[in-house]
């Protein structure tokens, strides 16, 4: 039995950053466990869930739409409703939006080009557990690689999210046509977060940046705290 917090990484058909996410989570102190999308339950003792990047179901219909109704999502929904930390990266963000666990939706990039490069992000809010190792105004360099990354919500929702500090990350420049250059958002309860950039690809200075490690390490902190909160006194 390890004392590292158990973090589930869900594998959908077409996920391709599942192993990178698991590796990176391991590098920042978690015990990652891969969970298949057909599983109707999460492994016992899980402290956080990550929906990784990729192209689940070939992006058929709309990105993330089909994965959002797969069997494992029932368990993820319950986990989130109970206050468990859930992080969606890229395709995982698209899935969480389609599952209505996060506000908005990801549209095709305005330039109709797949964008694959380092992006500079500005931390807009550090209130969420996922952002606890960052400070407001801090700049993070984390790579993006997506064709459908233009976050969109109606004007009323957008204004409300901004006022409540639910927009946690913005691109320092226009990367894909996202409304307000939004790169990452959290839900009302601040325990579900999605972002288009890939923190799991930025956990080692040797690979250009370790800024993604700040987000993943904060997720591991949240996973540990969640397990402690659930533990019998």
């Amino acid at each position, binding site marked *: 039995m390890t004392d590292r917090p158990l973090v589930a990484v869900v594998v959908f058909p077409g996920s391709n950053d599942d192993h990178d996410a698991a590796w990176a989570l391991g590098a920042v102190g978690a015990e990652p466990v891969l969970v298949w999308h057909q599983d109707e339950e999460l492994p016992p003792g899980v402290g956080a869930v990550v929906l990784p990047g990729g192209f689940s179901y070939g992006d058929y219909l709309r990105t993330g739409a*089909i994965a959002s*109704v797969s069997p494992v999502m029932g368990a993820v929904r319950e986990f989130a409703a109970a206050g468990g930390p859930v992080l969606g990266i890229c395709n995982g963000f698209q899935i969480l939006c389609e599952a209505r666990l996060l506000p908005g*939706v990801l549209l095709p*990039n*305005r330039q*109709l080009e797949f964008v694959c490069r380092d992006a500079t992000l500005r931390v807009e809010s550090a209130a969420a557990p996922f952002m606890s190792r960052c400070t407001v105004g801090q700049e993070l360099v984390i790579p993006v690689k997506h064709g459908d990354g233009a976050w*969109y919500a*109606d004007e009323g929702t957008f204004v409300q999210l901004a006022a409540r500090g639910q927009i946690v990350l913005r691109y320092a420049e226009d990367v894909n*046509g996202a409304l307000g250059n939004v790169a990452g958002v959290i839900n009302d309860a601040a325990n579900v977060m999605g972002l288009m950039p890939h923190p799991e690809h930025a956990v080692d200075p040797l690979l250009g940046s370790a800024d993604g490690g700040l987000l993943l390490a904060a997720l591991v902190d949240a996973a540990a705290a969640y397990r402690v909160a659930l533990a019998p006194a």
Partner: protein
Amino acid sequence: MKATVVVRPKDGILDPQGDAVQHSLRALGFDVASARIGRVVDLEIAADDRADAEAQVRRMCSELLANPLIESFEIRLEDE
């Protein structure tokens, strides 16, 4: 029963695919002010009657086929 669902991007929603097609059509010499790209889903379903079919397809649209934030849909039913 056969049913067809037409899904369209709502007005004002970014549709870069439609924009690219509009530009291409203009390059071909057509006077096209706008092109919007949606999706057609042809279904064959088991239903008691038209009302049942319509209700089922409407639920399919709200649960999966269309995202109400960005898309509108239209249902057409066709008897065998």
